[in-house]
């Protein structure tokens, strides 16, 4: 898996974290403030030059405008900047990379770091610079490892090719996750197969964060801060940190026990939906029954010592727990049978409801597992996009009163990304999060990973899940058999012929799920695809910056590309060969203007509905 670590083409030229508080006096050297610099082999004086100059000029501009610098362009490099107190992050890409993408990449990187390490200032107090440097490097290489430039443009989630997989398998994956959620300590989960998402219950942004850990473990078995549990090497866990909004988002899912038992609207689910849900719930049980036996028979040996694992959680890595103890959790009573069943009942109802509420065209059914979760989430969040944004806004106002760092600009810009981007914004790794009680700190959680060969079940669980023997056993056993079965099926799926190139190229980006469908070969640097990728990148930026723009056709001498977007998706289409001699003068018979029609027609068979 070397190509995961050493990407074919470097997406980012520079990345550094600079701590201005260490360089205050006249005698302080710039190098003392450099927490991390990429590429690491850069000569120190050059590192100092870049850090010192960018930080200095950035601060000057920030003071003039009383607002932190967000983007800094040089002739040859484009830097996304994040400034918080004395910390400054800068990520430099080639100027060809659109501004939106650079900013997104930096946000992703910082958020990743905070997800696994907590607040930046804090983790630098706890860990050596070398340790954290290796983590920055890991996250950077993960983010740069996407297979194609198109994926970089959209910063999308890598999913398994759903057109190539039996939809029932996807349903099964979704059901495994839902089954895990019966344990009240499990917040949400996702299933990943060979570095690709099979099913997830989380926002794309959160899922992406899990992916880095997954791909990290995929490449090297030793995890920096994970612990092997009593279940053997198959199960591991690691501490992670959620932002309050992420947590809120997860807790507002239909599976939430507190809410679902009270929610009445589900009761009125029409009959038709019940039928649908019945077929869904029936199918997996039949496919599941066979492989589940060997799994459950294996398990007792592995169940020996949940208590040991509990102690190991707190003793082996005191740094995580002592200075930053998890908030006291109210002791939850063990599940009584009666309660359990009621929970189950409401659970199932909410599933039906989720499918119902997400009643999309037939083309979407193969993604049913995923989309149901998302559809329902946004629904409960209070009217989808608007609701989420509204919440964020209030949130931010509250922050604003503490310091003046407003991130309105970003939220205005991120229009294309719907709420996913928004949800992440307020999390910033506020270095002073722990000092200022008014600010919302990151909330420690645990990431539970269960690996079955190439398949990984990743669950976000309450920290004390690991000490709750019963819950762990329950989750482990309820999922093991199904995971084995799913793995076997997925493994047997042929990699899928990339499909004849066809007389056209398209890319379809689902903004809600953050997934990309394309018939591009995916190999970087393919000459014939260059014009398409370039146009797509330009149009994507334009869509992001202009809320009202719905569709566009742009033509250069080499290619005519059609782009269209709605709230939920962006689609780009180019027809090969159709470019006969043209003069560029307006002409309604010009082939470029027939692109919208062709796109509608051609893309139907790819499950893309532009009508």
């Amino acid at each position, binding site marked *: 898996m070397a190509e995961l670590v050493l990407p074919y083409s470097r997406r980012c030229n520079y990345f550094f974290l600079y701590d201005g508080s260490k360089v205050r006096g006249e005698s302080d050297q710039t190098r003392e403030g450099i927490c991390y610099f990429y590429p690491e082999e850069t000569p120190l004086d050059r590192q100092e030059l870049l850090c010192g100059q960018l930080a200095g000029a950035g601060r000057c501009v920030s003071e003039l405008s009383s607002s932190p610098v967000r983007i800094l362009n040089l*002739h040859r490099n484009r830097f996304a900047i994040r400034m918080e107190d004395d910390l400054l992050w800068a990520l430099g890409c080639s100027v060809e990379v659109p501004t939106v993408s650079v900013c997104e990449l930096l946000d992703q990187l910082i958020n990743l770091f905070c997800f696994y390490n907590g607040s930046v200032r804090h983790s630098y107090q706890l860990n050596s610079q070398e340790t954290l440097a290796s983590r920055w490097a890991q996250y950077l290489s993960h983010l740069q490892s996407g297979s194609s430039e198109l994926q970089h443009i959209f910063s999308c989630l890598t999913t398994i090719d759903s057109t190539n997989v039996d939809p029932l398998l996807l349903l099964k994956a979704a059901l495994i996750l839902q089954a895990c959620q019966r344990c009240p300590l499990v917040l949400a989960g996702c299933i990943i197969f060979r570095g690709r998402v099979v099913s997830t219950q989380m926002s794309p942004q959160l899922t992406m964060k899990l992916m880095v850990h997954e791909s990290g473990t995929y490449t090297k078995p030793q995890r920096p801060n994970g612990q092997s549990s009593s279940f053997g090497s198959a199960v591991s866990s690691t501490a992670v940190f959620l932002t309050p909004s992420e947590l809120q988002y997860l807790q507002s899912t239909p599976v939430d026990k507190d809410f679902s038992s009270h929610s009445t609207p589900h009761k009125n689910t029409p009959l038709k939906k019940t039928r649908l849900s019945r077929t869904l719930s029936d199918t997996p049980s039949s496919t599941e029954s066979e492989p589940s036996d060997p799994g459950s028979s294996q398990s007792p040996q592995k169940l020996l010592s949940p208590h040991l694992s509990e102690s190991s959680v707190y003793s082996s890595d005191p740094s995580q727990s002592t200075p930053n103890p998890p908030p006291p959790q109210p002791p939850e009573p063990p599940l009584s049978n009666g309660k359990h069943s009621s929970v189950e009942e409401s659970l199932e109802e909410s599933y039906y409801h989720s499918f119902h509420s997400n009643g999309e065209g037939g083309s979407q059914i193969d993604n049913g597992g995923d989309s149901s979760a998302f559809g329902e989430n946004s629904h409960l969040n209070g009217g989808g996009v608007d609701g989420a944004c509204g919440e964020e806004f209030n949130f931010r106002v509250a922050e604003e009163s503490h310091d003046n760092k407003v991130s*309105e600009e970003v939220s205005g810009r991120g229009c294309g990304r719907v709420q996913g981007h928004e949800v992440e914004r307020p999390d910033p790794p506020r270095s002073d999060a722990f000092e200022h009680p008014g600010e919302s700190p990151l909330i420690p959680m645990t990431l539970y990973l269960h690996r079955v060969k190439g398949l990984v079940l990743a669950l976000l669980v309450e920290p004390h899940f690991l000490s709750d023997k019963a819950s762990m056993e329950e989750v482990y056993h309820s999922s093991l058999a199904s995971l084995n079965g799913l793995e076997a099926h997925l493994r047997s799926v042929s990699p899928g012929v990339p499909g004849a190139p066809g007389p056209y190229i398209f890319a379809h980006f689902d903004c809600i799920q953050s997934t990309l469908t394309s018939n591009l070969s995916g190999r970087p640097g393919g000459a014939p695809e260059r014009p398409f990728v370039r146009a797509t990148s330009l149009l994507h930026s334009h869509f992001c910056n202009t809320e009202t723009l719905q569709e566009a056709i742009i033509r250069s001498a080499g290619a005519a590309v059609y782009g269209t977007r709605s709230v939920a998706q962006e689609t780009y289409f180019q027809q090969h060969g159709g470019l006969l001699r*043209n003069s560029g003068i307006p002409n309604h018979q010009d082939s470029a203007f027939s692109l919208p029609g062709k796109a509608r027609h051609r893309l139907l068979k790819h499950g893309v509905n532009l009508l």
Partner: protein
Amino acid sequence: MKCLLISSQSAEVLFHWTDPEFYQNVQAQYVSSQEDGHGLPAFEDSISTLFAPIIISCITMVDRLGDSYTSFTTENNHIYVLHQFDECLYIAVNGDGEEGEGDLRRKIYVMKKMIEVMFGMVTLSSNLLKRELRPQDTEQRARLWEHLQSLLETYSHLRENDQSFLVEAVERLIHPTLCEQCIEFLERRLVQQLNSSVERAGEEVLHAFILVHTKLLAFYSSRNASTLSTSDLLALIIMSQNMYPSNTDQDDPNPEDIESTSGSGPESFYTPEPSPTDMDSRSSDMPVRESTPLFEFVDPDVQMAEDSLHTLEVPPPDPSTPRRVFLEVSLKDGLFPMMPHSMYCLPLWPGITLVLLTKIPTSAVAMSVYTFLEAFAKLEKRLNEGQEGPAATRGQPTIHDIRSKLDKFIKALGASEIQSAQLQNVWTDFKNRIGRGGPGFNRELIHSCKNMKTQLCGVYRQCFLIESGTADSPRRLSPGLQERAQTMVQDKLMDWKDFLLVKSKRNITMVSYLEDFPGLIHFICVDRSTGQMIAPSLNITERNVSELGKGPLAQFIKSKVWSLVSTTRRYLQKGYSTVTLRDGDFYFCYFLWFENETGYKLEAGDIPVLPDDSAPIGMLAWDYYRKLLRYYSKNHQGEVVKCYELLTVHLGVIPTEVILQHCRQLASKLWEPSRNPLL
């Protein structure tokens, strides 16, 4: 929140312009930091201190990394655009969302263009330009900056309100008969009479044109004149608008607009409130500030005749004194940029102006200076590229070609009142050096080249920037002659005056197109080979209502048109010559195409892909289209290639096929006025 700053590499302010908000913002930063009651420092000092870290960092980055900042964006959407021309760093700032990065870059380039038009080849020597932009005498400096500030404000106002400055092409008044009559009048009567008068003091009228507001009624160039480039013409229109601002907005209830066009209104914002403490700080600050920068950068070899530095005269208020402008001249033996001309701007009535451009008798000197400058610049370039000295001097044009010419030139100068002793010395030094060779030869020779260039620019400056004509024989068309010209044209246009003023506001109107093009809301058509444009008027003032009505809707459509232009420029910059956009309830189209002289549509070719920070696409500050035409013509040798652009705004409900048919009809009809009943 707008600002434009020109700074030297040592953070010395060479020019600044700020709007009231930015001014207050800067002052506020000082109020907060200076609570000990020492009063505020002079604004120029404040702004210099605030920007100094950026400026110095910029220079450091260039020196050590070979790369430098082009722009900053903050989270509250303040944009800073930086561009360095030689040793002058331009910084443009916007903090109110009214201008994008492209607009700011354009502003910087336009500022540079205006400075070139005003100072000519002096701009080629950073040392001289720095002193020119920052005269030692504070009063003189204030006057110069005020003038530049008001030019900048006039430009900004035009760019925001005038479609011809939006697309950077000249708009003609569409009235073929009257135009023809006027041109004939200018040719047969006016220019002929002026050029045969003895009162013209050696000057020769080359171009004469009549402007109605910003629109061109008639333009005449004498036979031996080269064509006036669109870039220069647009710059001249800005200057004449600055001198005699149009009162198109007088009906506007917002008085600020009028102030900003007149350029003198907001001046009160630029001077801090006088207060006792303020005066104190000034008197203590000033001498220090004045004494340091002046001699700091004076290379001993570059010392000019010091007395000449003090003699620069700011044009006195006498209206008959022409403006010295430096314009491009293309002759058979080549292109000569920044050749001195005199510009006479004669107001006929408010809003209608006659502009005369004359060639001055000594303009041959400018050509010689330019030839020499070019030769030394080329030599310097070859030396910098590492060519050995002797080989480098043999490149085209050889130094030996220059040698005799320059000797003669210096001799001739010696006979005039121009101080050329320094030039003589440096030239002698250069000649000695070039014969020597040996180690360090290249480096020394490069230094010598630089000196020669500076000295040549210095001579040029003496010849054309300082009003050398003494009081007894001012070199200009006599006031009486100017007055006669004015009266002649006034008589000619007397009956048309009111018509013209109205016509200029409703040159062509959408009404005439509605029937043939249902659903069409607006269009702009530009002929880039001639630099002319046609567009229905879009006046949005209280009294002058266009078909779009007034108020928010008209304002909305105007803002859509403006943003469409900047969007299509961005695509053009990246090589896309056709763009259609469905945006809200509108459908926008943009086409760029080439034709040959007979109207035959040429095949669309590759359009160069430019970096984000390249010069702005347009014709005013940097003629993108001229370069594009040259690039395209490479594959069309022997053919005259023309370049056209069409932008349309349609209602989104109109079917695309119909929209495209409209575009096609517009494209084919618009430039054939004789066959087009609509015009």
